[in-house]
């Protein structure tokens, strides 16, 4: 990860570019946001499979870890890490290992939000 102000610049440029790609997919193929998220997750998994996503994270920091593509990347990371230890079975046991934080946080906070907040509009 880049230190100093360049880190912010690269995070902005790379994160913005991934979102811009998402918007272009949405508008040109007339997709809804859910479909675009699915495409980007699969893209992130494939990019990690061929070893391209980690260099992007080293370059752009949160610019590469905050977009949903990193979810696909983390799923593959978890699977590959456990695969090294336990072989094929590790693929199944490891898939959610790295993404646990994001998914657990989303389930817990979304549940609490439903308890305390009413939908607006």
């Amino acid at each position, binding site marked *: 990860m880049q230190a100093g102000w360049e880190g912010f610049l690269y995070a902005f440029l790379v*994160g913005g570019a991934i979102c811009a790609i998402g918007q272009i997919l949405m508008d040109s193929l*007339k997709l809804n946001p859910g479909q675009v998220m699915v495409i980007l*997750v699969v893209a992130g998994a494939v990019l990690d499979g061929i070893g391209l996503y980690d260099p992007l994270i080293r370059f752009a*920091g*949160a610019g590469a870890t*905050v977009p949903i593509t990193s979810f696909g990347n983390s799923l593959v990371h978890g699977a590959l890490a456990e695969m090294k230890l336990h072989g094929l079975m590790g693929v199944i046991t490891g898939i959610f290992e790295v993404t646990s934080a994001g998914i657990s946080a*989303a389930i817990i906070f979304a549940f609490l939000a*439903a308890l305390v907040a009413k939908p607006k509009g």
Partner: protein
Amino acid sequence: MPARVRQDASDYQQLAQSHTPSRPILRNTVRAFLVGGGVCVIGQIVLLLFVRYGHFSPKEAGNPTSAVMVLLSVIFTALGVYDRFAAWAGAGSAVPITGFANTMASAAMEYRSEGLVLGVGGNMFKLAGPVIVYGVVSAFFVALARYAIQHL
């Protein structure tokens, strides 16, 4: 179908098409770029705070950063701010992990009226589910491919 009706139908389609707003791709893309980039800069700030004050390595700090971004997104969704912001930002608000959390929180809130178990529990993943399903399935095949390459 009589010719007259067919004529009307095609007229109607033309009329409807001329009134459908064309999607201004360039403007939308610029907005998505600016907002998406901005969300990632906030993420970068959170990440650096974890590195500096939480004693995480830059590599490990990604996970707690995701959790904080999810929390922020759920708070703004509960306040009703995120959806207004999403209408302007398009993919800029949907593509970051905050958009994923937003779909879960808004589905949970919306179906609260149908009860805690079947309403909130049953619908929380209504929009986020496809992302998890396709993410896990594609990760499975990518890992399988890596396994095959290593062992052939």
